[in-house]
């Protein structure tokens, strides 16, 4: 069993020393620092996030997505015929994103997020995974002015995602999170999603399909046959039967979101350990990873740190797991 994280890590903290990115961006807006200077702030903040994840004892890290304004922003900026549009609320969060606007055939050079991955890999000895936005989530939340068909749009996004996954693979990445909460929001599109993941799988890099915010109850069996190496399941955000049905997923690693990344209430070591023990009744420990439910950026930095500690200590305390 391994511990991991999903999504974005808090970019700032309430400590005076933890405001560098926020003030750096303000200075950049006012023209007081140039792109290169801002880049250095991003890099320093990314290194700090990685160091913190490492220190907390997380086994498989990501780069903290420090440059991401939202799940789509890096891709909406880089992909051909995609712009960043109006602000919209991101699911049931008081967090907002810019809707991507698709104005023509989407195309990607596949290098959108490779630089951060390379930086992250140079900053730690531990395994670092990449991340790309999910095709169904992108397709259901963007403004489509070109394809005029959810199916065509989703598959076009999937091809661009596949290019990103291939690019990350070339950069040395051995696992890529595809963050796709829409799969559990819109279970009616599960077969369209499956086709999209077939295309992404052709990139030849192991994929972790990360769902969150909503329970996977209605699609669990379908997810079990997706062409992915890992399936991420949030078992804390809402009532769910998933925890009792984990044996539906075979031959794939389950990334279980067991620490609530959207509420400040801290889980005790025992609570976390109990959830893991329950999962281990249905999943062998070599196929179980544990994580926060989603990106820790929904929490203030100090709480995010405590949540990581709760995750790691709970995982170590769980019965049946070698220390």
């Amino acid at each position, binding site marked *: 069993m391994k511990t991991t994280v999903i999504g974005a890590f*808090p*970019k*700032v*903290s*309430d400590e005076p020393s933890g405001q560098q990115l*926020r003030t750096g*961006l*303000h200075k950049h*807006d006012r023209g007081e620092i140039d792109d290169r200077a801002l880049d250095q702030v991003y890099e320093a903040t990314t290194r700090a996030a990685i160091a913190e994840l490492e220190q907390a004892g997380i086994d498989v890290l990501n780069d903290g997505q420090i440059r991401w*304004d*939202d799940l789509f922003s890096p891709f909406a900026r880089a992909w051909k015929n995609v712009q960043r549009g*109006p*602000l*919209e*609320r991101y*699911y*049931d*969060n*008081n*967090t*907002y*994103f*810019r809707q991507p606007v698709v104005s023509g055939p989407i195309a990607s050079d596949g290098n959108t997020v490779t630089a951060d991955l390379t930086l992250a890999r140079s900053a730690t000895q531990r395994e670092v995974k990449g991340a790309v936005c999910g095709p169904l989530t992108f397709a259901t939340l963007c403004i489509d002015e070109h394809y005029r068909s959810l199916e065509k749009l989703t598959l076009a996004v999937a091809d661009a995602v596949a290019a990103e996954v291939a690019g990350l693979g070339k950069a040395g990445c051995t696992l890529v999170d595809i963050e796709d909460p829409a799969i559990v929001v819109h279970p009616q599109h599960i077969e369209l999603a499956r086709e999209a993941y077939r295309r992404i799988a052709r990139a030849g890099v192991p994929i972790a399909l990360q769902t969150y915010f909503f329970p996977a109850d209605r699609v669990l069996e379908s997810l079990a046959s997706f062409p992915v190496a890992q399936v991420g399941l949030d078992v804390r955000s809402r009532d769910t039967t998933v925890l009792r049905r984990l044996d539906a997923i075979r031959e794939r690693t389950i990334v279980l979101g067991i620490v609530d990344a959207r*509420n*400040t*209430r801290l889980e005790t070591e025992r609570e976390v350990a109990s959830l893991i023990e329950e999962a281990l009744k249905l999943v062998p420990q070599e196929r179980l990873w544990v994580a926060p439910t989603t990106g820790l*950026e*929904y*929490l*203030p*930095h*100090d*709480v995010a740190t405590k949540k990581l500690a709760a995750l790691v200590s709970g995982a170590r305390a769980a019965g049946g797991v070698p220390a």
Partner: protein
Amino acid sequence: MSDVLLTTTVGSFGKPEYLQKARNARARGKLSEAELLELERKATTEWIRAQEEIGLDILVDGEMYRGDMVAYFAERLEGYTIGGLVRSYGNRYYHKPIISGKISRPKPMTVEWFQFTQSLTDRPVKGMLTGPYTMLDWSYLESYKTRRDAALALAEVVRQEAEDLQAAGAKYIQIDEPAIHARPEEIAIAIEAMGVVTQNLTAKTVSHICYGDFAAIYPQVLDLPVDRLSLAMSNYGYRWLDLFERHPYTKELEIGIVDVHKHELESVEEAAAGIRKGLRYVTPEKLLPHPDCGLKTRPPEESIAKCRVVVEAAKLVRKELAAVPA
């Protein structure tokens, strides 16, 4: 004051630069509370004069004394603590409050501001509150067992505040629920909580809803126990009106006819077209044009220009309505 197509706004206006500076200075302890209060009153007075000059019918205090619409109340309620910084979007952060104990209201939170503002003008001023469901949804929850329990506890303190506003003379009380569609499966909780808030009110009640999938809660939202809904429409290309085609809209409607998240100014004709769209579903007595949302993110001069368009568009359509023989 005309009695059809009364114009209003959603609640907040931009803070003038001197007030922003003063708030920063206060946060650093370089300005006293009394000094800040004086500037907040000055800015409120300026916004009242501006609204009168623009010709709006139902005024607001502009929320010069508030930062965030949830944090303002959270800071004044027992049972809340203020958490660390969380990003809302881009490079914008806020202190997301934590429901950490038993919620209660030690004293009124907005009544003095209402009294002050109403004393400045003969036109009606709306009392402005954040609804219990949004208070819940935009807070972390640590201390109540269920979200419903917390929503009902919050409803009780919002009820107390609303009744105090009514006792102070408020003819209109707005109880905003912009988070109402965050979890459509919880609409019954939002409705139950609002029922607690408005149960004893005789004032006209209105609830503003924006940013999200209104279709997901329609028509259930018609059971929200308020007289009016206030909806962003222009920003959504008036697509929510199509829902009224399928299931009749039964409340009064404050309709957003100018987009508050873009700099470009709509033409009067464009805004008037929005009012006419609304008139297909709501009678002129029950239709109140306004900007889509609060104007606090817009520079004051832009807000004034947007409000002028609303007022001029209402005048234009009123004329058209008057030209129709009885």
